[in-house]
């Protein structure tokens, strides 16, 4: 698959990656290496969910890569694996810098103020206190929460907290950025602002992965599209070509 003999510099190499989740049929957690785990694991039925099956591709510097596929096709599993958050069963992923998944929601606490959450979220993403203090005004302003930033986050509407989450996550630039479409939230005004910010980050980041169900935003922003279905790579190429094939596929499915 190295076939694309372009002269550019590769930044992410995904080499025959498999992601497998092991779940006890009862829904209980299973350890990855449960074969050695003794009699308990053998008695309970172990189900394997093969989320990503032998995917390989090489991404070059400056590319904006759209990732498309239906729900549950393995897009997110692949992206978390690229970000190094999800262990892979076999294969390997190489990158020139640590790919950063844009998302900070899990660390924020509803009971404390927006301002404190900015500090907490920033620290979670690896910035120093100094850096965060310097940018917290800008984050507040970007989220449009100047009057509410001292209130506990639980008093925010869902749109407001989504805006704060995005503003924190998008406050810095990264070399390799993974954006999940779910981040484009809030009212129309904020959506425009966040899309502009994403474009800005894309321009500054060497490489961007965009996971989206919106073919419009994929066509608008990506220079290359990868289509994944049932964990397998179906197509990888020019956006127009791949999106056209994907539309045909989804269209024919609904007719069926």
């Amino acid at each position, binding site marked *: *698959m*190295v076939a694309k003999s372009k002269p550019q*510099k*590769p*930044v*992410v*190499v995904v*080499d*025959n990656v498999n992601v497998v*989740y*092991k*779940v006890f049929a009862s829904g*209980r*957690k*299973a*350890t*990855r290496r449960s074969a050695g*785990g003794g009699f308990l694991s053998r008695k309970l039925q172990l189900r394997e*969910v093969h989320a990503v099956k032998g995917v*390989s591709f*090489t991404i070059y510097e400056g590319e904006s890569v759209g990732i498309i596929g239906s729900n549950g096709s393995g897009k997110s599993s692949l992206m*978390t*694996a*690229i*970000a*190094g*958050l*999800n*262990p*892979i069963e076999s294969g*390997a*992923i*190489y*990158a*020139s810098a*640590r*790919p950063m*998944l844009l*998302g*900070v*929601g*899990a*660390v924020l*606490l*509803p*009971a*404390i103020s927006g301002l*404190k959450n900015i*500090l*907490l979220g920033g*620290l*979670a*993403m*690896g910035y*120093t*206190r100094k850096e965060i203090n310097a940018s917290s005004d800008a984050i507040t302003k970007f989220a449009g929460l100047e009057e509410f930033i001292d209130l*506990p986050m639980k008093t925010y509407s869902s749109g407001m907290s989504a805006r704060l989450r995005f503003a924190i996550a998008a406050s810095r630039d990264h070399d390799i950025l993974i954006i999940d479409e779910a981040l484009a939230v809030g009212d129309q005004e904020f959506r425009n602002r966040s899309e502009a910010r994403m474009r800005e980050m894309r321009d500054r980041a060497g490489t961007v992965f965009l996971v989206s169900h919106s073919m419009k935003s994929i066509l608008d922003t990506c220079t290359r599209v990868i289509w994944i279905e049932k964990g397998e790579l179906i197509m990888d190429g020019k956006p127009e070509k791949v999106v056209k094939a994907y539309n045909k596929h989804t269209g024919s499915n609904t007719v069926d």
Partner: protein
Amino acid sequence: MSLAEYAKQNGLSKVGAREPLWSYVKHAWQRRDFAYVMALYTNQANNSRNRLGRWWMVLSPTLQAAVYGLIFGILLGGSRPDNFIPFLITGVFLFSFLQGAYTAGANSVSNNIGLVRSLSFPRILLPINALIQQVFSLLPQVALLVVTLLVFQQQVTLNWLYLVPIILLMIVFGFGLATISARLTVHIQDLNKLNPFLTRVVFYVSGIFFSIETVLKDYPLAMQIASWNPVYVYISLARGAMVEGYSMTAGMWIAAVAWALGLFVIGTIFFWRAEERYGCEI
């Protein structure tokens, strides 16, 4: 040329590979502020839920001590150890810290699985965060302990200063407990059900409300074994420093330092060895 060679040739490094131990520890140390702030804010968030807020940090240990004092004070009747109330409170408060470190550590990774799956940071910060929260709740208890001892003994000795190194050693030991229980619980969820019984057993064998020395007077071998129980070691040291009629021995100090350093090293390595596997479970 294989993809792996191609990646290597272009200077790409493997994603998600576990760092070597030393750089892992260094990396975790650089990010310590995250664990601290998260613990601080979680604590504030928990306190903000109740009307009495942070007063509960003093109120609940007081109530706990009162209940134990009432029950064991009456139950044990004449066979109470000397200077019973200071003896009991020292035991109960310090035990609750070690128990908390173990239990909160056990939940630290599995309760934050969403965090593990969305951000990359040395995962050891999660049990550290749990430990810091326990330290936050220990401090008001120590203040309460000092006040109670003042009321009952009506004098302060220089020996009280030993409480500082004792607590520091306990925190180091608690770090080991938290990291070990964190990894164990990730592998075996069922431990969560067993932990309450485990901590109860330790509570009963560590002489929190009775004197092990008196009970095991006629069994020197059992006493030898019991005196290596780390929980017993730390609590006996603290009693030796604080409570009238009890004393510290060199053997206790050696055991306390050995346990703290030993478990610190073992816990760090044990937790680090599974670093890339946290979060893989659904």
